[in-house]
């Protein structure tokens, strides 16, 4: 793992922990969980937009949605996490499942049961990155993530038809 990846991982952890402590002092618990995820997701969204814009500026146009998704799984993922998505599945009706068997932002998190439930907070930012990237490529989507076994995780992308 390269040195600057570590820096990003630590920054990401601090960011997550800040958002959670900050919100906890303001709102009641149930609401809090929802807002934290959406704040992180929103930050990711904006950054995803910026990244994809710079990253695709010399690219030829994509021929269809699947082409966009493949680009995201290979080039985009490789660019930000230095590995590709391990498995991409689709029902050919706008739903895509991206599986990363060793997701960078989870490798530093321990894998106790309780952690598994809390892992959504380490995925929200990345969900935003994906949604932001897709959005700037002209695809509106809903992105969710789940962890079944640390440190692998699945991102589900549902493209919203206009």
């Amino acid at each position, binding site marked *: 793992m390269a040195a*600057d990846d570590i820096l*990003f991982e630590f920054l990401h952890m*601090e960011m997550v922990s*800040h958002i959670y402590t900050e919100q906890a002092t303001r709102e009641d618990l149930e609401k809090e969980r929802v807002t934290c995820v959406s704040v992180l997701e929103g930050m990711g969204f904006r950054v995803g937009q910026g990244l994809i814009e*710079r990253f695709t500026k010399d690219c030829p146009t994509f021929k269809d949605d699947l082409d966009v998704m493949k680009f995201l799984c290979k080039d985009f993922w490789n660019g930000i996490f230095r590995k590709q998505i391990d498995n991409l599945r689709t029902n050919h009706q706008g739903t895509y499942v991206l599986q990363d068997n060793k997701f960078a932002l989870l490798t530093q998190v321990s894998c106790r049961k309780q952690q598994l439930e809390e892992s959504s907070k380490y995925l929200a*930012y990345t969900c935003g990155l994906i949604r932001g990237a897709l959005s700037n490529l002209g695809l509106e989507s809903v992105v969710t993530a789940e962890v079944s076994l640390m440190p692998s995780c699945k991102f589900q992308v549902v493209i919203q038809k206009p």
Partner: protein
Amino acid sequence: MSRQSNRTTDNKKMNSELFTLTYGALVTQLCKDYENDEEVNKQLDKMGYNIGVRLIEDFLARSSVGRCHDFRETADVIAKVAFKMYLGITPSVTNWSPAGDEFSLILESNPLVDFVELPDNHNTLIYSNLLCGVLRGALEMVQMAVDVRFVQDTLRGDNVTEIRMKFIKRIEENLPAGDE
């Protein structure tokens, strides 16, 4: 048409852009969360500190530098090894105080501010204050208490970015009584 271009060179850049943009998003969020710039500066420093205390371990493992004999050596390691490793820049070490306990790091470029412009209503925001926290936290873990602050910043119209570091004291390790 298949998309094959010079990706390998891009990756490096992309990764650092992810860091830069993420940092930007974080500072923006902090500005929303806190009422004034001082609070934001404080929070950035605190987050940096938390990163620093963990980063030092990674640094020592990666760099395999040995113990520094004086503060001058520490300064060199910070500028030439640590900054180079994590941010890809090599600041110059200058403006030593006569006593040799204080120096400046001059950053010709600062990757954290690559896409940044400060809005007018944030003129006391120290945008890159995270760096101060990181340095303070990391050095504390190697028994050095230091004072770190920004004295010049290109974001606020200065020609260079200058971080001033002052050695305060060596932290003695307090072993619990009876623990040899």
